[in-house]
């Protein structure tokens, strides 16, 4: 057991603690990702990544700490970061300025995926309020569509959002490119293309990733996709 485990707090980032073995298992999953060796080369502790990191300016967050914890294989700290820090990263990849070629943002991408795949409490909490977006991207292939521009969803974006919402149908029809006339998807997507996308979600396990963080959403999406595949006569 790591020495740091002897004097740690009884919970981790506000969530109940788990045995060291479970934390080690999660870290092993992170390390097993094929991208991991491309993202970590060891850390000088120079702090350049912190200096350019937007999240470090506003949160108790440090890409250097993430790279260090990974390099030192600090299982306890990695677990704590998976329950907290990783969701503060902006994924801008400014940290790629690292002189060692580390990619702390990329390590975080993998840590997030492991957190989602294993239904960690931080992942469930971070994705609360995100269901509609996941539904949209997985079911239509486009993440943002005009019917999402409802004033109640974006009150801080100013009155222009209400103007768009009020005039949506007319303003969409006033767009000359033919593909942009649809409000549900942002642009017109062929049925066959959706079928291909759904097969990708099924075949890569991406759809199943949602199960651990939002079971209801997973059920809905699975039903939508299976129905469409059946309609198109496509077998999985």
């Amino acid at each position, binding site marked *: 057991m790591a020495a740091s485990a002897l004097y740690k707090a009884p919970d981790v980032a506000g969530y109940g603690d788990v045995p060291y073995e479970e934390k080690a298992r999660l870290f092993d999953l992170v390390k097993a990702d094929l991208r991991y060796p491309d993202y970590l080369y060891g850390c000088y502790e120079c702090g350049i990544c912190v200096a350019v990191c937007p999240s470090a300016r506003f949160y108790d967050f440090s890409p250097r700490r993430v790279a260090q914890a990974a390099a030192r294989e600090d299982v306890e700290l990695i677990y704590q970061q998976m329950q907290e820090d990783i969701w503060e990263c902006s994924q801008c990849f400014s940290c790629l300025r690292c002189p060692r070629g580390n990619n702390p943002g990329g390590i975080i991408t993998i840590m997030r995926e492991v957190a989602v795949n294993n239904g960690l409490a931080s992942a469930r909490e971070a994705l609360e309020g995100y269901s509609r*977006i*996941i539904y949209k991207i997985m079911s239509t292939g486009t993440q943002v569509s005009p019917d999402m521009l409802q004033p109640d969803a974006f009150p801080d974006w100013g009155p222009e959002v209400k103007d768009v919402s009020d005039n949506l149908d007319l303003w969409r029809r006033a767009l000359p490119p033919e593909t942009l006339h649809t409000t549900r998807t942002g642009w017109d997507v062929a049925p066959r293309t959706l079928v*291909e996308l759904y097969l990708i979600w099924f*075949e*890569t396990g991406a759809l199943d990733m949602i199960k651990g*963080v939002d079971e209801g959403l997973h059920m809905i999406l699975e039903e939508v996709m299976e129905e469409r595949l059946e309609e198109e006569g496509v077998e999985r």
Partner: protein
Amino acid sequence: MTIPVEVLLTKKKTFERDPERLPEDFHEEVDRLEEEGEWVVQRVAGPYVEVPTRYGRPKKVQMGHLWHHKSCGQCGHIPGYSTSIFWVMRKLGLDYHDPRDQTSCTAWNYYASATSNAAAQAAVALRNFAAAQETGYFPLVHCGTSYGHYKEVREELIRHPELRAQVRAILAKLGKQMVMPEEIVHYSEWFYAMRHEIAARQVRSFEGIAVTVHPACHYYKLVEGDAIYDPDVYGGQRTAIVTGVAQALGAEVRSYSTWFDCCGFGFRHILVQRDFTRSFATRRKIEVMKEEADPDVVLTHDTGCVTTLDKSQFAARAHERNVGVPVMSEAQFAALAMGAHPYKVCQLHWHSADYRPLLEKMGIDWEQAWAEFQQDIKRLENGDIRYLTWEDVDA
């Protein structure tokens, strides 16, 4: 000891490329994998412009016959962005294909919620590439994140045969082959490559228009090697796209100290933690630009950046922050230079920060333009026409 800042800055005026430190050229790996039968490379075909990249290697940017890989966010809530790209191409007489068999890159979700994985992302990318190749049109990527992410995918596929095998099996089920374009090209690279042709068709003078540029992180930080850097723009120290276009159009590009900072988009933050996004966008970007450069307009070249920098200003006004500058893509800016209608083409009514003073400075009567747009809206309302057409916008 005082840090000799001025001396350091003098030394850093021009980026000197060290030939000993050149990273590997991905083209060689892409070609090798084609030779080994791993994938088909869609070659640049027809007229192209060669542009310089970060380490001096030339990049081919095909001029016409392009497959437009649209952006979910641009089409969703900044539709004047993609409309302007199409409009400029039409004005230059270049043909293009606006496909219906395209999905988004899905990377906004990947970077926000992590409810995806490397195989899914690579399969989505290569499915789109295959769709482009089937038409014979060459892909042109509208979004900075799609562009950066596709380059990441290319790197991962080059390095990991097991990933290629997994993606190949999935694509086979879709009836598609593995396709990798010779170059992954962002629309702002096309604008940079075509800036002199665009400037040659300029009908509105932009003399006296002060511009600040926000370069999009995913354009030049993710897989940096094939982003455009020009020794004649910022001494090759910063990416040349957007700035090169604004300068070609006669605008005055002003620098500011936080140019390297991201916009604050954050992927998940813009959607579910916008306090961060708003604070970063206004305090680290807009306010710094206003204080140090006082621009008439902020130009950028990515879906998320236009959204963040534009939409974040409204709430900051309530806190009496020093904000209030219009934000648009250089595609819209270039279209305006070429005489595009501010509403029918550039669709500025979808933007939030007040763009009207800028239009006035450009010599555009926005009240008259709005009245013209409203006439078209009336025709749509009355059922005289179902949609506004390309012919209508230039009428």
